[in-house]
């Protein structure tokens, strides 16, 4: 509401054609920046080619309206669709590879687009450009003319086309902001956050990381295209020189300096960075400030430099804030009183970029958020309802005894180069069992878990769940099939709350699609509420519902482990693999852990537990398999395994290879008291 009021009022207050045009610019760049923020900030994928998508939007809309006579209102949406499709096509092959490759391909896209715009004269007119791109009309006025009129009668406000077009741009921006907030604060945002923080954990709860990335890229491409179209209709004519690689960088700068991964960062960044150059130019052209005042210049440089030195030495909290402000202030002040520099605005811009990046790693939004006292204003606690420790049934889809299946491994081999991490292991995890897997370090236990869950494809052998062969499936498909896991080095989605982590676990059983989430329809909201309820019950089952609102990474290790187990249970697994659940857990919490494992087992979940902590694994398992050097050396009940000579040798050393003789003849130099 407030936003609408501001948008309506702003141009009426700032009654100046130039300023209104500036505000239009802020509005459409904000749209592009919001989309890019979803991709870069939340999804964690770098695109240096959104300027190209922006260009495609601009050209598409321009050509549609000038050559094909398509009405502006329709052309805007078509342009957005064109950019979205292009983004999708570019991302399709690229996102399969990890790491920097999206950045590389998008750079290429940016440059190819520029060259196409420059050279494909019949379509783009190259540097000459496409002219007389119409603005939309409304009340019989072309949105852009400065002619004043009073649509609401003589007593109504005086309007101009500029104002109307600002309202159009700002209206779009507002809608985009609201819809995107819907996405980001709901399940979609949770999922892409999760993917950014741990792709592997996302896969093991059934998220197709690839598809998720693809959708996100397409969404951000659509917004870039829409922004480009609005740009084209604002300018009236577009030339190829506008769409160089720098345009992509500019968009990225809006996002990063504004504050990636913050809902309103793009708006803040765009506003500051569109306005700032104009302010600098204005100040530069008037004699407001003292100029070429040497002591002042030197003083400012020293202040900025000292603060920078302070930052380089590392500092936290309020000191850091002060130092950052000092650096920025010193630098800006210096440029403002040094006419030789301010005339070269881009020089300042480049330097400012670096200064901002270094002093505000979380962007302006992050900087504001970290100001003392501001953080408290943000927190909105969700009230966790206590349900008491209930049962698992009804909360997650625990398979009925008749549907339970066993996990079978047949002659699995996993070789890395010359290293035979697993060398022909066969075993069967019977349904309803707690199956322990032990063995000394490096015996191949973790590799086995990775093979079963699809992280590795075995060199040879077969993994079967019931009759289904899992060998070649991707982890997220295996998770959907009913095999999930926890990790030795806990892989929680660190920035998410405990509740969000567990809600992520329900991913495979959610139905509301992208559009429903975007518009936050009733069914999507109901589903979200149900899942939330179930997640809370699951937390209650594990006695950690009071932690629902805590950030996962703030918990002690033992509790993080519980959260990880809760998240895995949420997928409704037939088989749950626990990879060293006791690693790093306090001894006092071990009892609780075994208790939880027993209760999960009672609820009917089959488990395979890899563990070093013998008290735990011997206590909870019905059946134990022992690995050594990638081979199975023993199998049986805990008691039989513990008295097995080969097992004792594997752990404590062989009786044939005692080391006692080594001691003989040694002289101990110093005998401490």
């Amino acid at each position, binding site marked *: 509401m407030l936003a609408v009021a501001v948008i309506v009022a702003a141009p009426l207050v700032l009654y100046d054609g130039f300023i209104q045009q500036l505000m239009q610019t802020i509005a459409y760049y904000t749209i592009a920046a919001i989309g890019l923020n979803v991709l*870069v900030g939340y999804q*964690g994928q*770098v695109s*240096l080619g959104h300027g190209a998508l922006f260009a495609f939007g601009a050209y598409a809309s321009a050509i549609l309206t000038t050559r094909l006579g398509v009405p502006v209102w329709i052309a805007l949406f078509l342009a957005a669709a064109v950019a979205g499709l292009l983004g999708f096509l*570019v991302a399709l*092959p*690229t996102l*399969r*590879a990890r790491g920097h*490759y999206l*950045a*590389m*391909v998008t*750079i*290429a*896209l940016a*440059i*190819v687009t520029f*060259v*196409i715009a*420059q*050279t494909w004269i019949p379509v783009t007119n190259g540097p000459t450009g496409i002219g007389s791109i119409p603005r939309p009309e409304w009340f019989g006025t072309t949105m852009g003319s400065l002619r004043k009129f009073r649509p609401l009668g003589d007593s109504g406000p005086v309007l101009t086309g500029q104002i109307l077009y600002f309202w159009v741009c700002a209206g779009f921006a507002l809608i985009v902001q609201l819809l995107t907030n819907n996405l980001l604060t709901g399940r979609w945002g949770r999922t892409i956050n999760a993917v950014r923080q741990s792709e*592997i954990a996302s896969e093991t709860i059934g998220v197709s990381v690839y598809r998720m990335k693809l959708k996100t890229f397409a969404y951000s491409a659509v917004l870039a295209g829409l922004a480009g179209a609005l740009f084209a209709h604002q300018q009236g004519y577009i030339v190829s020189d506008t769409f160089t*690689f720098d345009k992509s*960088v500019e968009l*990225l*700068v809006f996002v*990063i300096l504004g504050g*990636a991964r913050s809902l309103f960062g793009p708006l803040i960044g765009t506003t500051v960075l569109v306005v700032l150059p104009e302010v600098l130019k204005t100040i530069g052209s008037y004699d407001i400030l003292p100029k070429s005042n040497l002591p002042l210049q030197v003083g400012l440089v020293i202040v900025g430099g000292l603060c920078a030195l302070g*930052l*380089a030495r590392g500092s936290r909290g309020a000191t850091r804030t002060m130092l950052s402000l000092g650096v920025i202030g010193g630098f800006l002040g210096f440029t403002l009183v040094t006419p*030789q520099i301010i005339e*070269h605005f*881009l*020089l300042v*811009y*480049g*330097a400012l*970029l*670096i200064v901002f*990046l*270094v002093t505000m*790693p*979380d962007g302006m939004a992050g900087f504001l958020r970290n100001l003392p006292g501001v953080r408290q204003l943000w927190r909105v606690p969700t009230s966790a309802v206590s349900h008491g420790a209930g049962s698992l049934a009804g909360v997650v889809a625990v398979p009925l005894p008749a549907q339970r299946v066993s996990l079978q491994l047949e002659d699995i081999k996993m070789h*890395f*180069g010359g290293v035979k991490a697993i060398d022909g292991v066969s075993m069967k995890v019977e349904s309803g069992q707690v199956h322990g897997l032990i063995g000394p370090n490096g015996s191949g236990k973790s590799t086995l878990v*990775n093979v079963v869950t699809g*992280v590795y494809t075995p060199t040879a052998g077969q993994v079967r769940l019931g009759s289904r062969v899992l060998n070649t499936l991707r982890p997220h498909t295996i998770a959907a099939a009913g095999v999930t896991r926890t990790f030795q080095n806990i892989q929680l989605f660190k920035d998410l709350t405990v509740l969000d982590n567990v809600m992520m676990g329900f991913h495979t059983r959610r139905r509301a699609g992208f559009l429903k989430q975007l518009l936050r329809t009733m069914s999507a909201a109901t589903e979200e509420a149900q899942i939330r309820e179930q997640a809370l019950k699951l937390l209650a089952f594990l006695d950690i519902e009071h932690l629902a609102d805590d950030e996962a990474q703030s918990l002690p290790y033992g509790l993080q482990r519980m959260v990880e187990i809760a998240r895995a249970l949420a997928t409704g697994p037939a088989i749950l693999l626990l990879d060293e659940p006791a690693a790093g857990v306090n001894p006092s919490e071990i009892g609780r852990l075994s208790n939880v494992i027993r209760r999960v087992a009672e609820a009917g979940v089959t488990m395979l537990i890899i563990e070093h902590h013998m008290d735990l694994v011997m206590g909870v398992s019905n059946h134990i398999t022992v690995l050594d050097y990638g081979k199975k050396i023993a199998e049986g009940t805990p008691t039989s395994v513990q008295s097995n000579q080969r097992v004792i040798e594997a752990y404590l050393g062989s009786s044939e290879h005692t080391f006692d003789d080594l001691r003989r003849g040694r002289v101990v130099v110093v005998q401490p008291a």
Partner: protein
Amino acid sequence: MDALDTLLRGLPQAIASGLVYGSIYALIAQGYYVTFSTTQTLNFAQGDFLMIGGMLAFTVFGLLLLAGMPLVLSLVVALAIIPLVLALMGVLVERVAVRPLRRAFSLGWILSTVGVAVILRNAGEVIWGIEQKAVPSVFGDNAIRVDVGFFQFGVLPQEIFILTASLLAMAAVLFFLKQSLLGKAMAAVALNAPAASLMGIDVRAMVVLAYILSSVLAGLAGLLVVPVLHAYSLMGVLPGLKAFAVAIIGGLGNPFGILIAGLLLGVIEFVVAIFNASLRDAVTFFLLIVILAWRPLGLFEKPSMEKV
């Protein structure tokens, strides 16, 4: 048939010119390789470092010629000054724009080095003005015509110098990286920095060294090209980006792949230019998109097994 005829007639010249320019792309791209392999970062201002190298060459040549010194001496002085200045710039970029941002947010260093690029372009304009500058070649301006049956083309002596010198420079760098202990230490840092530090290797020093090396390479490239390309503040933009494409296509971890990709792309560019000069600058990036879609790790890189 006409097209084929044009192609055949233009081919020798395209190959000759392509190899010359390709060697420059490869030379700059080796700089990307050096920093990326040690630090997983690279300097997007690399092309503008080339411009600074070229501008410095212009200044040195200008001053010394004015003082009546022989051309060769100018070259020698430039060869001494440029690496020194560029090395300092490399240290500065690493310290100011890369190191503070390496951990904070993976995007940070991309944008901050782009910021460096923006600064350099404009500083170049402020210091040296906007007009294009010609620098004389030590080897004169008389093109050497080759006219042996099918092979009809012309090259400038300076172009031969470019090809030779950049190949030599690359050979020297590769020799340093692969054979010297310091080079091996850099590779060790790239492979496993904690383990390298346990060998007594100063990881930070190796990172700075990588930045020095890459910057010097770009500066040398600038010195080499100014006699055939005019020097101006934006001269480094396209070579920098093309070299980046070359590095990706050849494989950011594969210096030999980069060399081959550089020469190859140089030739392809000039072959395309036979038909449409304006597409010359685009073809590299088209190829980049196609090749990345087909082999995401570059033409010559083998995918490696990732351990969890």
